[in-house]
């Protein structure tokens, strides 16, 4: 029995944004890291660490805002470990990133032991007088939680900094050819460490969004692979901020849409609905990036000043 009328477009849109935001935050962070020439496969570990740090602080202080700040700090702190390993000790990026994920999962399970079954303080939705009360436009544009807007603003900021500022140019130079950047006198290691910390903070925010808003609760391993999806998204989006946002919203959107279609009893085989978020996102991004799809030239390569 098909019942499409039971799907409310405004509620669907709100759920879509909630599903997309954690991926968007984590992927934007990883985008900056990779544009600086570093491949950090530890996104999942940094996200889950952010999820528990944010959750614990929000519960203890009663403030979701402090929770999100703690999540960013927690994610950045974990990424500092990766920065030391790869930028100071010159360890392999891939191995260090994988280790970071394992470490993050274990650490978060340890930190989270006293937080199972606790309800976090609610994050208020935006409520702008007049604007939020407008019919249709109000609930669609002006009535989400603040982090949804943070995600969108961050997309714009990342795009602007990377493409329109000197700092962005330096970061990209480091990612494209670290020897040349070094010869020009730029501090390759310093730039990369800062990019890694930014990536960690973004991943932490994304994780906390899941534990504080999307679910909201703490459960061990609750990110369940979102970090890997964010990583893949950066590649399919050809390392561009706008496309990362498109991909995250597409993935989140189709995920939520397919659940709603299932609930409405749409006569499509569930197997296809279930795989649709992956297929549609990949197809769209691959077609869009058909013309030029090149990774930063120094991605994943270890830099040493003597080379």
């Amino acid at each position: 029995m098909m019942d499409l009328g039971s799907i409310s477009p405004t509620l669907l849109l709100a759920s879509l944004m909630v599903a997309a935001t954690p991926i968007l935050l984590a992927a934007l962070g990883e985008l900056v890291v990779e544009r600086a020439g570093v491949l950090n496969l530890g996104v999942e570990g940094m996200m889950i660490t952010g999820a528990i740090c944010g959750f614990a602080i929000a519960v203890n202080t009663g403030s979701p805002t402090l929770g999100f700040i703690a999540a960013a700090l927690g994610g950045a702190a974990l990424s500092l470990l990766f920065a030391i390993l790869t930028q100071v000790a010159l360890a392999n990026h891939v191995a260090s990133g994988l280790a970071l994920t394992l470490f993050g999962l274990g650490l978060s399970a340890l930190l989270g032991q006293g937080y199972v079954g606790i309800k976090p303080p609610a994050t208020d939705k935006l409520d702008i007088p007049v604007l939020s009360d407008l019919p249709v436009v109000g609930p669609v544009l002006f009535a989400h939680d603040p982090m949804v807007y943070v995600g969108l603003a961050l997309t714009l900021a990342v795009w602007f900094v990377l493409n329109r500022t000197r700092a962005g140019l330096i970061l990209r130079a480091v990612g494209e050819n670290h020897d040349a950047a070094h010869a020009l006198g730029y501090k390759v290691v310093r730039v990369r460490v800062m990019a890694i910390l930014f990536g960690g903070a973004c991943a932490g925010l994304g994780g906390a969004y899941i534990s504080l808003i999307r679910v909201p609760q703490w459960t061990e391993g609750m990110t369940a692979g979102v970090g890997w999806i964010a990583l893949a998204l950066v590649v399919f989006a050809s390392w561009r901020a706008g496309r990362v946002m498109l991909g995250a919203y597409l993935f989140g959107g189709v995920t939520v849409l397919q659940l709603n279609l299932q609930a409405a009893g749409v006569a499509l085989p569930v197997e296809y609905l279930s795989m649709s978020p992956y297929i549609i996102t990949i197809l769209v991004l691959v077609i869009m990036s058909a013309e030029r799809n090149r990774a930063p030239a120094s991605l994943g390569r270890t830099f040493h000043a003597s080379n």
Partner: protein
Amino acid sequence: MKFVKHLAGAALALGLATSAMAQDKTKVGFIYVGPVGDGGWTYEHDKGRQAIEEAFGDAVETVYQESVPEGADAERAITQMALQGADLIFTTSFGYMDPTVNVAAKFPDVKFEHATGYKTADNVSTYSARFYEGRAIQGHIAGKMTKTNTIGYIASFPIPEVIRGINSAYIHAKKVNPDVQFKIIWAFTWFDPAKEADAATALIEQGADVILQHTDSTAPQAAAEKAGGVITFGQASDMSEYAPLPRVSSIIDDWGPYYVARTKAVMDGNWSTVQTWDGIGAGMVGIGEITDAVPADVKAEALAMKDAIASGEYHPFSGPLKKQDGSDWLAEGETADDGTLLGMDFYVEGLDGEIPN
């Protein structure tokens, strides 16, 4: 140099000592599909593991590996555990069936126990619980309590165990509320809190005011609590941290006694292949406290049904029942045989939609 020699000697002695001790101990391994802190399925299996340690103390050593994906990687994890010297290995999810049987063929001296599957061998037993008995009670409460006549069901994978649960819940909801409708979402995961919460939210937004789940985390409970005005049931574990609302009752898996008995059998050398399928009567399926959010008369009916199922007086799949396509399944007075239940791949009459392949 001398110091190094001493150190090496000490290490050698220590190594010998531990391996000598290891020979005395019975080593029991567990393969988990989720993390031990999922608050549901894996959490209860791990409580069973702890029961073994409590029962036998120093005579046993238990090891576990969590979040092992179902499929090819499971074979590697099980093999590794067998190589580490485990005497008995419990593989605790349906998707470990073929990997378990494959590894068992290579380690004839190790005993294997696979949960919820149907393939056995000389050194492979199966065990499962009759969760559908608990589903019948949930269906009854759900049918009585829904105001929108819409019950949301978060299913995991289209395997007989899950389909049995849907059918059992539907039959008993329909019996007390002919207008009831089930909306089913297949999540295709056992454990993914974000997706489970999204599924619960989608069902609630489409009018469901009861959420039944066959996934392992407490995320749907949190989503229901956030939405308000929705009731849920604990799955695999009591999930009492969400009582009295939204969680109004639960199905609790109690694996401890079975795990202790099987470990004892290995220690005594009389382990043999069995196919265990116990329910409320044997204590493998528990019904968590029904909270005061449930009206007293509904609670009394639910408890009466529990007693009737436990004593064997009532079978949740009792005729007359038809299949979804309208064909006859069970005649008046007939009850389903275990063979049909174990291989159940059809919906009963009244359910909408198709079961995915």
